[in-house]
Structure formats: structure tokens, C-alpha cells
């Protein structure tokens, strides 16, 4: 596998409601920013463009096509889309580069969840015969997953609150974060339950926003003369949709993906983990074999702001930018999709 460079990354603020901003107006500022960082003018200057979004979130059919209006796709560009988090758009572009079909790629993800009732919208991503007709939502599944772990004694409610307190605290230094603060775990535990055993703060907020990234071959990055972080490995795995067959207290797919990309082959300075619910960070930390010498979610993670369909790519961007800024030399980024961490993508990033 050839190394691939991340040369630029930008993300919008996570906002509860982006109001009068359509998909183009959400995407355009982050595109402008990554073009500036790379020193290029438009999507015409890369070989491939791929985006991640889901039209169900805002209830606008073909919003992902409308989003192309932000690109300047005249003359026509090579363009693709995944109805997934843009971390998987990165995976598609990474494959293109591996195959020699492209030397550079623009990726972006956007989500406007505010127009709908997101947990109910997400219930419709589940099995259409057995689950979707009951309108069971992902918060409920996450809550049942948390109880499995609480019942077995693997975690305590205090452990979960610690994750939230640290996320909100880390988010104080993140200008894009939606939820930040210096509450202690003890403060948080005083709150009532929401969907028991979860408290509201155990759940990621609902956010609108976008992010964008530019990747390329190492040769292209050198030609552009820009600092970069290197993708040393990227892998994704999925577990069965038959949720009763899964062991919800582990993330087997994350374990396999982490093993495949060699997470343990060196010290992990920073890990950005896409854990939409507090207890899931504990599952992921264990699945990736991360020790206490790894700083987890210095950005605050998605508990501080979760732009569905962009947050996975943003985890990768967060780690890449720390490498580009010279703060760290090796990091891991994780993205997820589906109920109870059903599908997981793991990326190992290193400095040159």
C-alpha cells in the first residue's frame, strides 16, 4: 500500500441549527478554506471529488446533488458520493489513489439534521421488517448497550460521566465545539436520566455543519510544497444487522480494523474516537488497545458536537492537523456508523 498525504482540512462550527443555510452555503466556506490551505483554486485542480451525506437528515431529496453546485464542476469533474459519513468518502478516494486512478482528491461531508427529528429519522436506517416499523431509535439501542455494560460491572455510571466531563473540558479549547464546560463528573451525575440508563449528556448533541479535506500522493504533496500528515493505514469493517447476534459490550469490527491497520505498531499520541455515546468511548478505547499514554478526543469528540456524515472525516482531520502543526507524530482516528457502533473505520496517521 502506498502512503497517502493529507494536506488540508477545514470544518465548520457545530451548530444546533444552521438556520437559513442550504447545503451549498454550508459546504462552500470549508471548500474555500481547504483550497486556500493547499494553494489551489477549485475542485478542477484535483483529480477526484467524493462527498458523504444523507438526504434523510434534512428531508431534501437529492440534496447531495445540489451540494455539487458548490464545486464549480464545469467542465465536468470526476465526482462520487457515499450515503455515509465522509470518512468513507476518504476511503473511496484512498482506493482511487491506491489504484493509480488519481493523484489527488477533495473530500467533503455535510449534514443538516436540524430540520427533522434525528433519532426518529435514524430509526429508519434499521432493519425494515423487524426494527424500523417499531420506530426504535439509536438512542434506545445505545442505552441498552450501556446497560449491558453496567449490569456486567464492566463500567459504572461514574465512568461514563468522566468521559463526558473530559470531553466538555477538552472542548473548551475547540472553537468549533457546540457543548463545552468545566462540569465535573460528580456534577453531571446529579442530572436525571434521559433514556435510562443514559443521561442527556451521555448522548452526542445534534449538530449542523460541514467539513472538507484534500489528500494526495506524497509526490503531489511535495510538488505543492505543503506540510502533510501521512495515512499509514485505513480499514473498515461491519457487523451483522441482526443486533441480537452481536456482543454489544465489545466492538469486534473496530478490533479487526485496528489490527489490520497496525494501531499497536507504535505509540499512539492522540486518538480521535467517534463515540456518539459516552460508554462507547470506553468500548472503542479497549477495542483499539489504547493505553493511558494516549490522549483521547482532545477536540472534545462528538459529545461536544456531532455533524452526522461529517464527524467521522473530522476525527481524521483533527488528528491530521495536530500532526501537520507538529504537535504529535502518530495518531489514530476512528469513524462509526449504524446502531451500537455497527460499522467502524480506523485510520493510522503519522508525521513524515
Amino acid at each position, binding site marked *: 500500500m502506498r502512503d497517502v498525504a493529507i494536506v488540508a482540512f477545514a470544518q465548520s462550527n457545530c451548530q444546533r441549527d444552521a438556520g437559513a443555510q442550504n447545503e451549498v452555503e454550508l459546504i462552500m466556506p470549508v471548500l474555500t478554506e481547504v483550497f486556500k490551505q493547499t494553494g489551489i483554486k*477549485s475542485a478542477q485542480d484535483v483529480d477526484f471529488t467524493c462527498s458523504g451525506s444523507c438526504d434523510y437528515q434534512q428531508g431534501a431529496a437529492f440534496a447531495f446533488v445540489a451540494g*455539487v453546485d458548490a464545486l464549480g464542476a464545469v467542465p465536468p469533474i470526476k465526482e462520487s458520493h457515499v450515503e455515509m459519513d465522509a470518512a468513507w468518502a476518504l476511503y473511496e478516494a484512498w482506493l482511487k489513489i491506491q489504484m493509480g486512478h488519481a493523484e489527488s482528491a477533495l473530500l467533503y461531508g455535510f449534514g443538516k439534521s436540524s430540520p*427533522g427529528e434525528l433519532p426518529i429519522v435514524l430509526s429508519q436506517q434499521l432493519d425494515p*421488517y*423487524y426494527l424500523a416499523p417499531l420506530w426504535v431509535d439509536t438512542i434506545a439501542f445505545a442505552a441498552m448497550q450501556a446497560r449491558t455494560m453496567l449490569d456486567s460491572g464492566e463500567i459504572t455510571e461514574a465512568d461514563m460521566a468522566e468521559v463526558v466531563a473530559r470531553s466538555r473540558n477538552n472542548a473548551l479549547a475547540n472553537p468549533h465545539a457546540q457543548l463545552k464546560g468545566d462540569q465535573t463528573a460528580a456534577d453531571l451525575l446529579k442530572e436525571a*436520566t434521559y433514556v435510562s440508563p443514559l443521561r442527556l449528556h451521555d448522548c452526542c448533541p445534534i449538530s449542523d455543519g460541514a467539513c472538507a479535506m484534500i489528500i494526495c500522493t506524497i509526490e503531489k504533496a511535495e510538488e505543492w510544497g505543503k506540510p502533510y500528515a501521512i495515512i499509514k493505514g485505513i480499514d473498515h469493517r461491519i457487523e451483522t444487522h441482526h443486533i*441480537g447476534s452481536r456482543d454489544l459490550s465489545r466492538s469486534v469490527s473496530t478490533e479487526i480494523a485496528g489490527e489490520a491497520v497496525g494501531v499497536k505498531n507504535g505509540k499512539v499520541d492522540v486518538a480521535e474516537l467517534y463515540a456518539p455515546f459516552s460508554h462507547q468511548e470506553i468500548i472503542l478505547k479497549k477495542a483499539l488497545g489504547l493505553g493511558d499514554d494516549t490522549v483521547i478526543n482532545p477536540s472534545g469528540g462528538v459529545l461536544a458536537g456531532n455533524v452526522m456524515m461529517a464527524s467521522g472525516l473530522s476525527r481524521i482531520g483533527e488528528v491530521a492537523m495536530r500532526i501537520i502543526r507538529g504537535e504529535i507524530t502518530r495518531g489514530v482516528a476512528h469513524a462509526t456508523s449504524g446502531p451500537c457502533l455497527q460499522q467502524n473505520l480506523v485510520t493510522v496517521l503519522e508525521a513524515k
Partner: protein
Amino acid sequence: MSSSAEILSQAFTLGYTYTRSTGPIVGQFLTSLRARKMVGIKASDGKVLMPPVEFDPVSAAALSEFVDVADCGVVKTWCWVKQPRKAHPSDKPFAWAMILLDGADTPMLHWIDAGDEAAMSTGMRVKVRWAEETKGLMSDINGFVPEAAALLGELKPAASDEQITGMEAPIYLTYNFTAGKATARYLQSMKKGKLVGQRCPNCRNVYIPPRGSCAACGVPTEEEVTLGNKATVESFTIVYIPIPGNPIKPPYVIANLVLDGANLSFLHLLSECKNEDVRIGMRVEALWKPEEEWGYAMENIQYFKPIDEPDVPVDQIGKLIDEGR
């Protein structure tokens, strides 16, 4: 449509009125459910999966051996919903739970009517509360209840015993759609009886309705351009098929129209002429509804009608200079 400062929004419901094919495995499960019986399926390793799936989650082998399981079992995990959402199966507080039915090896998802969170515990025994009428849907189980609860409802026999091969699975999702900034500006102008587009700072093309960007150049558009009521037919079609809910009687003409001074067409109705006289290059003009009927909508223009001006050559459509400005 409501307007607050710059934001225009409108509630709407998206309906996906799907009928799904079940296939033989799901179909058998739903057929049994309608007869108030629970069946699982034997996996490659001999375990009984509940509800049944077509393929083994581990070996991927096709599965076919159904196994009867009980309509009662044990709660493996659960959560408590204090404030049910409108779409939820219960309008009073309830539990979602993974329930391991006696005779099955994997728990299945359903809801429990326990009355109070204090009545719930992991490991408690529950039983199915069958719906009075069964239809071959997951809702044939009207939730589970604690095993000791008395069930009094009358159970009607199933209306049919035919094998189920499909199920109605309508989905309705409600949204509050918000117009983008550029669209909102455009609609606010429409409400005042003005057609206002945006000009690309790069290629100078003018777009109406504007989207806030030039799709060709990929740059934001800010400069607003007020356009007149005259336009040219770029293309058209004659619609002969009645469209449900559409008050306009066919046959009628829908045309791609390019306003003078604009470079991209939009769709609108063309009327006050014989359908067969409509042609590419034809000059037309907007007929606005009475001012008191104006809203935040393109329908403020009732239709476009022909005007007595020479046709525009095809290669010049969309390239006209708006002399009225």
C-alpha cells in the same frame, strides 16, 4: 410558510409508502406472528436466531430450518423511555428491551408495557401481549408485559392464513424545511412582486432562482440583479397526463424559460396561446396574480403568456442583455 427576519421555513411531511417483499424467511416469521406463534431459525452452529434471518451472520450460509419458540422469556437488557416520541408504539412511558424468548439463543427487540421504571429489571420474565387483531407485522405483538400480568383482551382469529409475501411499510417523516439564504432573499423579493437573481463575480452569469453559488465556477454569488418580466422559451413540453392533486387541466405547456438578463432557465407554465403554436425562441411575459395573493412562492406568477416580439435565434437564448435596466 413562516418568515422570521431572514429565515423562511415550512413544515412538511415526507411519505415513503413502500410495500416490501418479505422473501420466504421473513414471510414465514410474519405468517406465524399473524397466527400468534413465534418462530426462530436454526443457525449454522445449531443456535436458534430470533427473529429469523435469511443468512447466518457468521457462516453466511442460507438458513431454512424454522424452530418454534415460546412467547415468553427473559429481559437481557432494556432502557426506559420517559417521554415517548410521537412515532413510538406507546404513548405512555415504556421500556425498549432485548428479550430472550424461551427456546431461542439470541434476544429480540420489542417494547415492554411495565407501567413504571421501578417494575423493570434485567433478568425479569415477560410475555407477549398479542394484539386483538393480527396482520402479519411486528405490531401484532402489542408489546410485552411482566409474566405475572393478567391479559384480558379478546383475541380475534387471524383474518387470513395465506402465506405472507409482502408487507405495507409506510414511513412518514416530518421536517421543518428552511430555505437557504439566497433562496430566502429570492422568495422575499417574489413576495414583493420582483424577480431578483444573483450574478457570478467570476463568469458574470446571472442565475434565477439563485442558489448562493455559481455552479460552473464554484464561487459564492452575492450581487443581486433585478430582472424584468420578459423571457424566452428555451424548451417546452406539452403535458397530456393528469397529475393527481394538480388543478391544471391537461393538455398544458410547461416551458424552460430564460428571463431577459439571466443565463439559466427555470420551469413555468405557458398559457394564453394554442399549445401547438409554442416554439423554442418564442417571446413571453409573466402574468402576475393580484398583489393580495402574493406569497413566498414562484406561483405568484400565474403563468407566462406570449408577447408580440420577434423570436430569438436558438444560439442567442440565455445571452440577452436586459435592456430594461
